[in-house]
């Protein structure tokens, strides 16, 4: 596949990527897009820490600081963490269940472009100079009075990106429900597929509230609505509820796939089956379910009353139980195994103590009266970075090393990988551990600067130095990626040698139809079973070699999204500019015409002929 692409000209290659509906390529697109925004959010983080390096600092102004923290949070959650995870879900999950593509390849592409254009929309605010500044939570009273179009960029950008997320969620759900290979029962699915499944289900039920919330905010700001204007009978607490009904599940949407990634890594590099698989699955589902019951623990100080606070406090603590089950199952997976500390395993091993720290501080904040002290202090900043960086980002970095050979056919350098890990890991703890104490010492979060003489100087200094170490780690990773790509040493099907799941049974990267023959799954860790039974090919086929039906590529998703992108600008500038209204109309027309074209044509896909499959098999030297 890639060798073919290299022969094409630049234009043809670009066209190929813009029209692709291949889940593996879309996975790479997500990875690239998410990686770009990750670096952007990281730069923002560095500026934040630079500003807080010393007291009374004025490297950035007060207003700019709020804009940076808002964009840092929004970018990292919506445009970096989630898309990168989507990249892995796209690239790997269909392989793990023995499918040739996702259920809706067209919608898959649409989802990517919506994320990308949504992210672009949000970040164009930097160029316009009107930047969201009400925090990533955008609490209504502040977001309503925020001047300029900053918050409009936030609302419309997230609306577009959020639509893409919802589509991706439905797509993954249907893929897992309908497209599992014969024998791949639910209780034989790899944990990463399971967590993708549960996270997608959570997306399905958590994103519509965000959609509504953002619409209400847009209406209030741009169309004379009064949802959050208390002088007109509105109520800002509604925004807080809606945001957190989305926002809390969102955290689990991020962390569950990371759990899935680690649940793949521990067995591979311990050469041992995941301990307590059914308990793991049950815990995942339970966490997903409880994730919807606890949103008000973000609002303990809002004044909901002791009864509501007590209920949500206890519900929040309950989540510790399934999470604890997971931790112990991982520990017992490596217990008695044969542990090889590769880079992915290093991340997984680093994850356990980091995430346990983040988890227990979460329980502490679940204790409502204690949360009155910790809420909106630096303690919470430390807590959620322990969960998101110590959980999600370590998971993402681990997955990058683990699946890079599967996605690109070449291994990232292990040495540089370990260098990255140690810089990142030490830097991470240095940055955030001390912040717990900053919270105890009374430092509120989201402060632009702090006065001297409050005892916060040293801790902030240490924290900022830690951030620098994390940045060095990421830079080493980028260098690693460049060197690896240039060297381009090709690897075989199972480069780690101990792969257990189906993706390791096929070539790296896989052919565009993934499986020459749909595999027959005979148990959990099916590739491991085949290997241990001496099956050289690693797969027991469930069908003869025959023509394979594949979907056609399409440029329509690109234009559909471009239309929304243009319409977004039009809606924003509809009043104060002459072109606003026409842009709004043009954008909407472009989107709807694209939809109509898609709807009116018969797109039946095409067939990969048996001859071509046989030819591929021969070139690869058999299925191995």
């Amino acid at each position, binding site marked *: 596949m890639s060798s073919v692409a290299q022969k094409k000209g630049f234009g043809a290659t670009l066209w190929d990527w813009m029209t692709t509906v291949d889940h593996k390529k879309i996975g790479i697109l997500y990875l690239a897009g998410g990686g770009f925004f990750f670096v952007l959010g990281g730069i923002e983080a560095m500026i934040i820490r630079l500003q807080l390096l010393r007291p009374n600092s004025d490297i950035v102004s007060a207003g700019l600081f709020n804009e940076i923290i808002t964009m840092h949070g929004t970018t990292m959650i919506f445009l970096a963490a989630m898309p990168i995870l989507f990249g892995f879900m796209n690239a790997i999950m269909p392989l793990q269940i023995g499918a040739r593509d996702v*259920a*809706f390849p067209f919608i898959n592409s649409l989802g990517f472009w919506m994320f990308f254009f949504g992210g672009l929309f949000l970040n164009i605010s930097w160029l316009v100079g009107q930047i969201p500044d009400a925090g990533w939570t955008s609490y209504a009273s502040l977001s309503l009075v925020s001047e300029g179009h900053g918050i409009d960029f936030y609302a419309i950008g997230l609306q577009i990106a959020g639509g893409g997320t*919802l589509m991706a969620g*439905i*797509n993954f*759900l*249907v893929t897992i*429900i*309908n*497209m599992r290979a014969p024998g791949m029962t639910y209780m034989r699915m790899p944990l990463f597929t399971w967590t993708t499944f549960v996270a997608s289900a959570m997306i*399905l*039920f958590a*994103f*519509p*509230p965000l*959609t*509504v*919330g953002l*619409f*209400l905010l847009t*209406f*209030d700001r741009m*169309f*004379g*609505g*009064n*949802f959050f*204007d208390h*002088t*007109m*009978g*509105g*109520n800002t607490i*509604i925004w807080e509820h*809606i945001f957190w*009904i989305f926002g809390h599940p969102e955290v689990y949407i991020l962390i569950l796939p990371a759990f899935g990634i680690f649940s793949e890594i521990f067995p591979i590099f311990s050469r041992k089956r995941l301990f307590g698989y059914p308990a793991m699955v049950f815990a995942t589902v339970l966490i997903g379910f409880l994730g919807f019951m606890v949103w008000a623990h973000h609002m303990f100080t809002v004044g909901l009353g002791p009864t509501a606070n007590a209920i949500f406090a206890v519900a929040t603590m309950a989540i510790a139980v399934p999470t604890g089950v997971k931790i112990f199952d991982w520990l017992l997976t490596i217990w008695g195994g044969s542990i090889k500390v590769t880079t992915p395993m290093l991340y997984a091993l680093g994850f356990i103590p980091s995430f346990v720290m983040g988890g227990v501080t979460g329980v502490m904040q679940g204790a409502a009266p204690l949360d009155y002290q910790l809420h909106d202090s630096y303690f919470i900043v430390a807590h959620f970075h322990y969960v998101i960086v110590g959980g999600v980002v370590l998971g993402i970095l681990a997955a990058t090393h683990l699946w890079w050979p599967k996605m690109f056919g070449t291994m990232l350098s292990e040495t540089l990988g370990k260098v990255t890990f140690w810089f990142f890991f030490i830097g991470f703890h240095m940055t955030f551990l001390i912040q717990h104490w900053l919270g105890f010492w009374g430092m509120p979060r989201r402060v632009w600067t702090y006065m001297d003489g409050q005892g916060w100087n040293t801790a902030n200094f240490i924290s900022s130095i830690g951030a620098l170490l994390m940045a060095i780690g990421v830079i080493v990773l980028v260098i690693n990626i460049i060197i690896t790509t240039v060297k381009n040493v090709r690897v075989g099907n199972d480069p780690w040698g101990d792969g257990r799941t189906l993706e390791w049974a096929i070539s790296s990267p896989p052919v565009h139809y993934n499986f020459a023959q749909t595999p027959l799954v005979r148990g959990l860790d099916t590739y491991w079973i085949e290997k241990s039974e001496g099956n050289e090919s690693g797969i027991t086929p469930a069908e003869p070699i025959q023509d394979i039906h594949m979907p056609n590529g399409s440029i329509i998703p690109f234009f559909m999204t471009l239309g929304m992108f243009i319409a977004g600008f039009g809606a924003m500038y509809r009043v104060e500019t002459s072109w606003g209204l026409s842009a709004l109309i043009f954008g909407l027309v472009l989107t709807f015409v694209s939809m*109509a074209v898609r*709807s*009116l044509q*018969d797109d*039946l896909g095409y067939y990969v002929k048996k001859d071509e499959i046989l030819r591929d098999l021969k070139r690869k030297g058999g299925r191995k």
Partner: protein
Amino acid sequence: MDLNKKFTPETWPDHPERATLEAKNKFVGFWLFLGGETVLFATLFATYLALKNKGPSGFGFSTQELYQLPLVFVMTMLLLTSSLTSVYAMYHLKNYNFKKMQLWLGITALLGLAFLMLEVYEFVHYVGEGFTFDNSAFSSAFYTLVGTHGFHVAIGLVWITLLIFRNSKRGLNLYNGTKFYTFSLYWHFIDVVWVFIFTVVYLMGVIG
């Protein structure tokens, strides 16, 4: 999938909406989508209930005085009937009777259009009384909830019209069978949402 494959009522599958993998995917995916839509409307209902009758000081509108049950009752009947006619259409889909299916879908669309026109009339009437979108939190919430439903009806109308015309020459096949079926799912969903709007917004507004 071969579009030119000709069916007879005998060879036509019992469940054309789930006869191929693509169809099955659409079928399951659409159900899931409706699950998400349910949460969307639930959020709007919750917002409406929280802001019902709320306005600036001296606000003069209340649900009791505003709503006109007879008009809303007629709208409800129109939409309920259109749900029934779409069931007839699905009956003919299953029996591979394309002409009758198209006919019933056409009737469904006309009933939906009548509903929509009455809703537009209702909104225009309220605006005429001074109950505009920006006059209070209550009005914002009302127009957003009921308007979102109305928008769904409008989308449904465009969808079915396109389907009817694009397939008028093609006839039924396994490719477009699911499309008709998912439309009918969508239409029933809209109908159910309206039943809730009728109850929660109008009946509880006037009586409760």
